[in-house]
Protein backbone atom coordinates (compact mmCIF):
# COMPACT_ATOMS: atom_id res chain seq x y z
CA UNK A 1 0.00 0.00 0.00
CA UNK A 2 2.83 2.37 0.69
CA UNK A 3 3.67 3.47 -2.79
CA UNK A 4 5.65 6.64 -3.19
CA UNK A 5 2.84 8.80 -4.51
CA UNK A 6 0.63 8.35 -1.46
CA UNK A 7 3.44 9.04 0.99
CA UNK A 8 4.13 12.20 -0.88
CA UNK A 9 0.63 13.52 -0.14
CA UNK A 10 1.22 12.94 3.55
CA UNK A 11 4.44 14.92 3.36
CA UNK A 12 2.67 17.70 1.50
CA UNK A 13 -0.04 17.73 4.14
CA UNK A 14 2.64 18.01 6.81
CA UNK A 15 4.19 21.00 5.09
CA UNK A 16 0.77 22.63 4.64
CA UNK A 17 0.07 22.18 8.35
CA UNK A 18 3.42 23.72 9.28
CA UNK A 19 2.75 26.70 7.02
CA UNK A 20 -0.76 27.09 8.42
CA UNK A 21 0.67 26.98 11.94
CA UNK A 22 3.27 29.62 11.13
CA UNK A 23 0.66 31.84 9.50
CA UNK A 24 -1.69 31.47 12.45
CA UNK A 25 1.16 32.22 14.83
CA UNK A 26 2.23 35.29 12.88
CA UNK A 27 -1.34 36.58 12.82
CA UNK A 28 -1.61 35.93 16.57
CA UNK A 29 1.45 38.12 17.17
CA UNK A 30 -0.55 41.05 15.78
CA UNK A 31 -3.20 40.73 18.51
CA UNK A 32 -1.79 43.72 20.33
CA UNK A 33 -3.95 45.38 22.88
CA UNK A 34 -3.54 48.58 24.82
CA UNK A 35 -6.19 47.45 27.13
CA UNK A 36 -6.63 44.10 28.79
CA UNK A 37 -8.73 42.82 31.65
CA UNK A 38 -6.59 39.76 32.33
CA UNK A 39 -2.87 39.03 32.52
CA UNK A 40 -2.95 36.19 29.95
CA UNK A 41 -4.15 38.11 26.94
CA UNK A 42 -5.63 37.08 23.61
CA UNK A 43 -2.43 35.61 22.16
CA UNK A 44 -1.80 32.62 24.40
CA UNK A 45 -4.31 30.12 23.08
CA UNK A 46 -3.75 30.84 19.37
CA UNK A 47 0.01 30.57 19.87
CA UNK A 48 -0.39 27.25 21.65
CA UNK A 49 -2.53 25.89 18.82
CA UNK A 50 -0.09 27.24 16.22
CA UNK A 51 2.82 25.55 18.00
CA UNK A 52 0.96 22.21 17.96
CA UNK A 53 0.38 22.66 14.23
CA UNK A 54 4.05 23.29 13.55
CA UNK A 55 5.14 20.33 15.68
CA UNK A 56 2.59 17.86 14.29
CA UNK A 57 3.12 19.03 10.72
CA UNK A 58 6.89 18.66 10.99
CA UNK A 59 6.65 15.10 12.29
CA UNK A 60 4.13 14.20 9.59
CA UNK A 61 6.30 15.66 6.83
CA UNK A 62 9.42 13.85 8.04
CA UNK A 63 7.85 10.51 8.93
CA UNK A 64 4.70 9.66 6.92
CA UNK A 65 2.86 6.78 8.53
CA UNK A 66 -0.01 5.44 6.47
CA UNK A 67 0.02 6.70 2.96
CA UNK A 68 -3.12 7.80 1.13
CA UNK A 69 -4.95 6.19 -1.75
CA UNK A 70 -6.70 8.81 -3.81
CA UNK A 71 -9.74 7.98 -5.92
CA UNK A 72 -9.28 7.79 -9.68
CA UNK A 73 -9.66 10.87 -11.82
CA UNK A 74 -13.21 10.06 -12.96
CA UNK A 75 -14.44 9.97 -9.36
CA UNK A 76 -12.42 13.00 -8.34
CA UNK A 77 -14.12 14.96 -11.11
CA UNK A 78 -17.50 13.86 -9.84
CA UNK A 79 -16.59 15.01 -6.32
CA UNK A 80 -15.31 18.32 -7.64
CA UNK A 81 -18.65 18.64 -9.42
CA UNK A 82 -20.54 18.27 -6.18
CA UNK A 83 -18.32 20.84 -4.44
CA UNK A 84 -18.95 23.25 -7.30
CA UNK A 85 -22.69 22.60 -6.94
CA UNK A 86 -22.54 23.43 -3.23
CA UNK A 87 -20.71 26.67 -3.89
CA UNK A 88 -23.12 27.58 -6.67
CA UNK A 89 -25.96 26.91 -4.25
CA UNK A 90 -24.45 29.32 -1.72
CA UNK A 91 -24.33 32.02 -4.36
CA UNK A 92 -27.64 31.25 -6.04
CA UNK A 93 -29.83 31.00 -2.95
CA UNK A 94 -30.49 34.72 -2.59
CA UNK A 95 -31.08 35.63 -6.26
CA UNK A 96 -32.82 32.44 -7.44
CA UNK A 97 -34.62 31.65 -4.23
CA UNK A 98 -34.89 28.49 -2.19
CA UNK A 99 -37.03 26.42 -4.54
CA UNK A 100 -35.03 26.87 -7.73
CA UNK A 101 -31.62 26.64 -6.09
CA UNK A 102 -32.49 23.59 -4.01
CA UNK A 103 -34.06 21.75 -6.93
CA UNK A 104 -30.93 22.41 -8.95
CA UNK A 105 -28.42 21.34 -6.31
CA UNK A 106 -30.33 18.27 -5.11
CA UNK A 107 -31.02 17.20 -8.69
CA UNK A 108 -27.37 17.58 -9.62
CA UNK A 109 -26.25 15.65 -6.57
CA UNK A 110 -28.76 12.85 -7.26
CA UNK A 111 -27.45 12.63 -10.82
CA UNK A 112 -23.91 12.38 -9.49
CA UNK A 113 -25.08 9.50 -7.30
CA UNK A 114 -26.24 7.74 -10.44
CA UNK A 115 -29.93 8.62 -10.77
CA UNK A 116 -31.49 9.32 -14.17
CA UNK A 117 -31.84 13.12 -14.54
CA UNK A 118 -35.59 12.91 -15.06
CA UNK A 119 -36.10 11.17 -11.71
CA UNK A 120 -33.36 13.17 -10.00
CA UNK A 121 -34.82 16.58 -10.76
CA UNK A 122 -38.40 15.45 -10.29
CA UNK A 123 -37.66 14.15 -6.82
CA UNK A 124 -35.60 17.25 -6.07
CA UNK A 125 -38.49 19.57 -6.98
CA UNK A 126 -40.85 17.57 -4.79
CA UNK A 127 -38.40 17.66 -1.90
CA UNK A 128 -37.80 21.40 -2.26
CA UNK A 129 -41.55 22.04 -2.20
CA UNK A 130 -42.03 19.87 0.87
CA UNK A 131 -39.12 21.56 2.63
CA UNK A 132 -40.42 25.00 1.78
CA UNK A 133 -43.74 24.29 3.44
CA UNK A 134 -42.15 22.47 6.36
CA UNK A 135 -39.63 25.16 7.21
CA UNK A 136 -41.47 28.34 6.34
CA UNK A 137 -44.86 27.39 7.72
CA UNK A 138 -43.98 24.62 10.16
CA UNK A 139 -40.92 26.10 11.81
CA UNK A 140 -41.32 29.77 10.90
CA UNK A 141 -37.90 29.83 9.33
CA UNK A 142 -37.81 32.46 6.61
CA UNK A 143 -36.24 31.10 3.41
CA UNK A 144 -35.34 33.31 0.46
CA UNK A 145 -38.04 33.63 -2.21
CA UNK A 146 -35.54 34.89 -4.76
CA UNK A 147 -34.65 38.48 -5.55
CA UNK A 148 -34.96 37.83 -9.27
CA UNK A 149 -38.63 36.94 -9.08
CA UNK A 150 -39.72 39.57 -6.57
CA UNK A 151 -38.20 42.58 -8.29
Amino acid at each position, binding site marked *: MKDRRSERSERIAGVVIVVAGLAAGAEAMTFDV*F*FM*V*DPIGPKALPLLAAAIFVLAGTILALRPQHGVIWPERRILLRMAGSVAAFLAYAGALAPLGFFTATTAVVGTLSTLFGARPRYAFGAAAALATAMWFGFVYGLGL*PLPIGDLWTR
Partner: protein
Amino acid sequence: MTCRSVGRVLRELDLSPGLVRTTNMPGAGGGVAYAHAVTRRASDPNVLIAASPGTTLLLAQNIYGGLTEDDVRWLGAIGAEYGVLAVAEDAPWSNLGELMDDWRADPGVIVVSGGSAAAGQDHMKVLLLVQRAGIDPRRIRYVPFDGGGEAMTALLGGFVQIFSGEASEVEGQVRAGRMRVLTVLAPQRLEGFLAEVPTARESGIDVDWITWRGFFVPSDISDERYDEWVETLRRVGQSPEWAEARQRNRLQPFFLVGEEFDAFVRQQVLDFRTMAREIGLSR
Protein backbone atom coordinates in the same frame (compact mmCIF):
# COMPACT_ATOMS: atom_id res chain seq x y z
CA MET B 1 -37.82 39.23 20.88
CA THR B 2 -38.60 42.94 20.87
CA CYS B 3 -38.76 42.78 17.12
CA ARG B 4 -41.32 39.99 17.06
CA SER B 5 -43.44 41.71 19.70
CA VAL B 6 -43.43 44.95 17.74
CA GLY B 7 -44.26 43.03 14.57
CA ARG B 8 -47.26 41.53 16.31
CA VAL B 9 -48.44 44.88 17.64
CA LEU B 10 -48.08 46.38 14.15
CA ARG B 11 -50.38 43.67 12.86
CA GLU B 12 -52.87 44.07 15.69
CA LEU B 13 -53.09 47.83 15.15
CA ASP B 14 -53.49 47.36 11.39
CA LEU B 15 -50.63 49.73 10.78
CA SER B 16 -48.86 47.54 8.33
CA PRO B 17 -50.13 47.29 4.74
CA GLY B 18 -49.02 43.70 4.28
CA LEU B 19 -47.29 40.90 6.01
CA VAL B 20 -44.70 41.88 8.59
CA ARG B 21 -41.70 39.67 7.96
CA THR B 22 -39.30 39.48 10.87
CA THR B 23 -35.91 38.25 9.85
CA ASN B 24 -33.45 37.44 12.53
CA MET B 25 -30.06 38.59 11.38
CA PRO B 26 -27.59 37.75 14.09
CA GLY B 27 -23.89 38.30 13.71
CA ALA B 28 -21.40 40.76 15.10
CA GLY B 29 -23.81 42.05 17.72
CA GLY B 30 -26.04 43.50 15.05
CA GLY B 31 -23.13 44.44 12.83
CA VAL B 32 -24.26 42.20 10.01
CA ALA B 33 -27.74 43.69 10.05
CA TYR B 34 -26.22 47.15 10.20
CA ALA B 35 -24.02 46.52 7.18
CA HIS B 36 -26.96 44.94 5.38
CA ALA B 37 -29.08 48.03 5.97
CA VAL B 38 -26.33 50.35 4.83
CA THR B 39 -25.18 48.49 1.74
CA ARG B 40 -27.92 46.29 0.35
CA ARG B 41 -31.08 48.01 1.51
CA ALA B 42 -29.90 51.61 1.52
CA SER B 43 -33.06 52.89 -0.15
CA ASP B 44 -35.61 50.26 0.88
CA PRO B 45 -38.49 52.23 2.43
CA ASN B 46 -40.04 49.17 4.04
CA VAL B 47 -37.32 47.87 6.29
CA LEU B 48 -36.97 48.54 9.98
CA ILE B 49 -34.00 47.26 11.99
CA ALA B 50 -33.83 46.75 15.75
CA ALA B 51 -30.98 48.16 17.80
CA SER B 52 -29.85 48.67 21.38
CA PRO B 53 -26.87 50.22 23.19
CA GLY B 54 -24.99 47.11 22.03
CA THR B 55 -25.20 48.65 18.57
CA THR B 56 -23.96 52.09 19.62
CA LEU B 57 -21.12 50.56 21.64
CA LEU B 58 -19.79 48.65 18.67
CA LEU B 59 -20.18 51.76 16.51
CA ALA B 60 -18.16 53.68 19.07
CA GLN B 61 -15.40 51.08 18.93
CA ASN B 62 -15.28 51.29 15.13
CA ILE B 63 -15.87 47.56 14.88
CA TYR B 64 -18.42 47.81 12.06
CA GLY B 65 -15.73 48.03 9.43
CA GLY B 66 -15.79 51.79 8.99
CA LEU B 67 -19.55 52.25 9.23
CA THR B 68 -20.68 55.05 11.53
CA GLU B 69 -23.81 56.28 13.23
CA ASP B 70 -24.34 58.61 10.25
CA ASP B 71 -24.95 55.74 7.85
CA VAL B 72 -28.50 55.10 9.03
CA ARG B 73 -31.42 57.17 10.34
CA TRP B 74 -32.30 56.63 13.96
CA LEU B 75 -36.02 56.25 14.43
CA GLY B 76 -36.89 55.77 18.08
CA ALA B 77 -36.99 53.54 21.13
CA ILE B 78 -40.14 52.33 22.86
CA GLY B 79 -38.93 50.37 25.87
CA ALA B 80 -35.86 49.98 28.02
CA GLU B 81 -34.14 48.24 30.85
CA TYR B 82 -31.99 50.02 33.37
CA GLY B 83 -28.58 49.16 34.74
CA VAL B 84 -28.00 48.14 38.33
CA LEU B 85 -25.01 47.50 40.57
CA ALA B 86 -25.57 44.70 43.05
CA VAL B 87 -23.56 43.11 45.85
CA ALA B 88 -23.84 39.93 47.86
CA GLU B 89 -26.18 40.05 50.82
CA ASP B 90 -23.25 40.08 53.32
CA ALA B 91 -21.26 42.81 51.55
CA PRO B 92 -19.84 45.62 53.73
CA TRP B 93 -21.56 48.44 51.80
CA SER B 94 -25.09 49.54 52.50
CA ASN B 95 -25.32 52.25 49.85
CA LEU B 96 -23.60 53.58 46.76
CA GLY B 97 -21.80 56.32 48.67
CA GLU B 98 -19.98 53.87 50.93
CA LEU B 99 -18.95 51.74 47.98
CA MET B 100 -17.65 54.78 46.13
CA ASP B 101 -15.56 55.84 49.14
CA ASP B 102 -13.88 52.44 49.35
CA TRP B 103 -13.49 52.29 45.60
CA ARG B 104 -11.84 55.68 45.50
CA ALA B 105 -9.49 54.69 48.32
CA ASP B 106 -8.20 51.60 46.55
CA PRO B 107 -9.67 50.65 43.15
CA GLY B 108 -7.44 47.57 42.98
CA VAL B 109 -9.23 45.50 45.62
CA ILE B 110 -12.72 45.59 44.14
CA VAL B 111 -13.56 43.33 41.20
CA VAL B 112 -16.71 43.71 39.10
CA SER B 113 -18.37 40.91 37.15
CA GLY B 114 -20.75 41.39 34.26
CA GLY B 115 -22.40 39.42 31.53
CA SER B 116 -20.92 41.29 28.60
CA ALA B 117 -17.46 41.42 27.04
CA ALA B 118 -14.83 43.98 27.91
CA ALA B 119 -16.04 47.40 26.74
CA GLY B 120 -19.53 45.89 26.46
CA GLN B 121 -22.64 47.20 28.17
CA ASP B 122 -22.04 45.88 31.68
CA HIS B 123 -18.45 47.14 31.62
CA MET B 124 -19.25 50.52 30.11
CA LYS B 125 -21.94 51.40 32.64
CA VAL B 126 -19.47 50.88 35.50
CA LEU B 127 -16.82 52.93 33.74
CA LEU B 128 -19.22 55.82 33.19
CA LEU B 129 -20.37 55.65 36.79
CA VAL B 130 -16.92 55.72 38.37
CA GLN B 131 -15.70 58.39 36.00
CA ARG B 132 -18.52 60.73 37.00
CA ALA B 133 -17.60 59.97 40.62
CA GLY B 134 -14.03 61.03 40.01
CA ILE B 135 -12.34 57.62 39.92
CA ASP B 136 -9.87 56.75 37.17
CA PRO B 137 -11.73 54.24 34.93
CA ARG B 138 -8.43 52.66 33.89
CA ARG B 139 -7.99 51.28 37.38
CA ILE B 140 -11.33 49.48 37.50
CA ARG B 141 -11.06 45.69 37.50
CA TYR B 142 -13.78 44.04 35.40
CA VAL B 143 -14.11 40.33 34.59
CA PRO B 144 -16.44 39.33 31.75
CA PHE B 145 -18.70 36.26 32.01
CA ASP B 146 -21.07 34.55 29.58
CA GLY B 147 -24.26 36.30 30.46
CA GLY B 148 -25.70 37.85 33.58
CA GLY B 149 -26.52 34.51 35.21
CA GLU B 150 -22.91 33.37 35.25
CA ALA B 151 -21.71 36.78 36.39
CA MET B 152 -24.16 36.69 39.30
CA THR B 153 -23.05 33.18 40.17
CA ALA B 154 -19.50 34.51 40.48
CA LEU B 155 -20.78 37.15 42.89
CA LEU B 156 -22.69 34.61 44.98
CA GLY B 157 -19.63 32.36 45.08
CA GLY B 158 -17.57 35.22 46.48
CA PHE B 159 -15.23 35.45 43.49
CA VAL B 160 -16.08 39.08 42.79
CA GLN B 161 -17.47 41.90 44.93
CA ILE B 162 -19.82 43.71 42.55
CA PHE B 163 -22.24 42.58 39.87
CA SER B 164 -23.02 44.91 37.03
CA GLY B 165 -26.19 44.06 35.13
CA GLU B 166 -29.80 44.86 34.47
CA ALA B 167 -32.72 45.16 36.82
CA SER B 168 -34.57 42.09 35.51
CA GLU B 169 -31.54 39.84 35.94
CA VAL B 170 -31.26 40.29 39.70
CA GLU B 171 -34.93 39.85 40.63
CA GLY B 172 -34.78 36.21 41.75
CA GLN B 173 -31.68 36.60 43.89
CA VAL B 174 -32.83 39.89 45.41
CA ARG B 175 -36.21 38.44 46.33
CA ALA B 176 -34.42 35.48 47.94
CA GLY B 177 -32.36 37.89 50.01
CA ARG B 178 -29.04 36.71 48.61
CA MET B 179 -28.17 39.88 46.77
CA ARG B 180 -28.73 43.58 47.37
CA VAL B 181 -28.97 46.28 44.75
CA LEU B 182 -26.93 49.35 45.71
CA THR B 183 -28.09 51.62 42.94
CA VAL B 184 -30.17 51.76 39.81
CA LEU B 185 -28.79 53.78 36.89
CA ALA B 186 -32.08 55.35 35.89
CA PRO B 187 -33.41 58.92 35.74
CA GLN B 188 -36.09 58.04 38.29
CA ARG B 189 -36.81 55.09 40.57
CA LEU B 190 -38.03 51.92 38.92
CA GLU B 191 -41.41 50.29 39.16
CA GLY B 192 -41.63 47.00 40.97
CA PHE B 193 -39.29 45.18 43.29
CA LEU B 194 -36.55 47.83 43.15
CA ALA B 195 -38.80 50.75 44.06
CA GLU B 196 -36.91 51.23 47.34
CA VAL B 197 -33.48 51.44 45.73
CA PRO B 198 -32.16 54.99 45.16
CA THR B 199 -30.90 56.04 41.76
CA ALA B 200 -27.29 57.05 41.18
CA ARG B 201 -28.53 60.60 40.66
CA GLU B 202 -30.02 60.58 44.15
CA SER B 203 -26.58 59.60 45.45
CA GLY B 204 -25.09 62.57 43.67
CA ILE B 205 -23.61 60.82 40.63
CA ASP B 206 -25.08 62.14 37.44
CA VAL B 207 -25.29 59.01 35.27
CA ASP B 208 -27.94 56.73 33.71
CA TRP B 209 -27.67 53.44 31.94
CA ILE B 210 -30.62 52.98 29.64
CA THR B 211 -30.66 49.70 27.74
CA TRP B 212 -33.12 51.02 25.20
CA ARG B 213 -34.81 48.85 22.61
CA GLY B 214 -35.14 50.85 19.47
CA PHE B 215 -35.01 50.93 15.71
CA PHE B 216 -33.26 52.53 12.78
CA VAL B 217 -34.08 52.72 9.07
CA PRO B 218 -31.81 52.94 6.00
CA SER B 219 -30.39 56.39 5.32
CA ASP B 220 -31.56 56.90 1.74
CA ILE B 221 -35.29 56.87 2.34
CA SER B 222 -37.28 60.07 1.84
CA ASP B 223 -38.02 62.46 4.70
CA GLU B 224 -41.76 61.79 4.27
CA ARG B 225 -41.22 58.09 4.69
CA TYR B 226 -39.06 58.73 7.76
CA ASP B 227 -41.84 60.84 9.27
CA GLU B 228 -44.34 58.09 8.50
CA TRP B 229 -42.15 55.60 10.31
CA VAL B 230 -41.84 57.93 13.31
CA GLU B 231 -45.61 58.25 13.39
CA THR B 232 -46.07 54.49 13.18
CA LEU B 233 -43.62 53.88 15.99
CA ARG B 234 -45.29 56.58 18.08
CA ARG B 235 -48.65 54.85 17.69
CA VAL B 236 -47.15 51.46 18.55
CA GLY B 237 -45.31 52.85 21.55
CA GLN B 238 -48.43 54.46 22.96
CA SER B 239 -50.79 51.55 22.34
CA PRO B 240 -52.07 49.36 25.18
CA GLU B 241 -51.08 46.31 23.11
CA TRP B 242 -47.46 47.37 23.27
CA ALA B 243 -47.69 48.17 26.99
CA GLU B 244 -48.75 44.59 27.54
CA ALA B 245 -46.04 43.13 25.31
CA ARG B 246 -43.48 45.41 26.97
CA GLN B 247 -44.36 44.14 30.40
CA ARG B 248 -44.23 40.57 29.25
CA ASN B 249 -40.72 41.22 27.99
CA ARG B 250 -39.84 42.84 31.33
CA LEU B 251 -39.10 46.21 29.86
CA GLN B 252 -39.58 49.50 31.68
CA PRO B 253 -41.37 52.41 30.01
CA PHE B 254 -39.10 54.49 27.80
CA PHE B 255 -40.26 56.52 24.84
CA LEU B 256 -38.15 58.66 22.55
CA VAL B 257 -38.75 59.04 18.79
CA GLY B 258 -37.70 61.13 15.83
CA GLU B 259 -35.10 63.88 15.95
CA GLU B 260 -34.79 63.72 19.75
CA PHE B 261 -33.89 60.07 19.57
CA ASP B 262 -31.42 60.76 16.79
CA ALA B 263 -29.68 63.36 18.96
CA PHE B 264 -29.75 60.99 21.92
CA VAL B 265 -28.03 58.22 19.96
CA ARG B 266 -25.37 60.53 18.58
CA GLN B 267 -24.55 61.80 22.05
CA GLN B 268 -24.35 58.24 23.31
CA VAL B 269 -21.95 57.13 20.59
CA LEU B 270 -19.83 60.19 21.36
CA ASP B 271 -19.74 59.39 25.09
CA PHE B 272 -18.79 55.80 24.44
CA ARG B 273 -16.12 56.78 21.95
CA THR B 274 -14.57 59.18 24.45
CA MET B 275 -14.58 56.51 27.14
CA ALA B 276 -13.11 53.86 24.84
CA ARG B 277 -10.27 56.24 24.04
CA GLU B 278 -9.81 57.11 27.70
CA ILE B 279 -9.26 53.53 28.81
CA GLY B 280 -6.96 52.92 25.86
CA LEU B 281 -9.33 50.63 24.05
CA SER B 282 -9.43 52.31 20.69
CA ARG B 283 -6.62 54.07 18.97
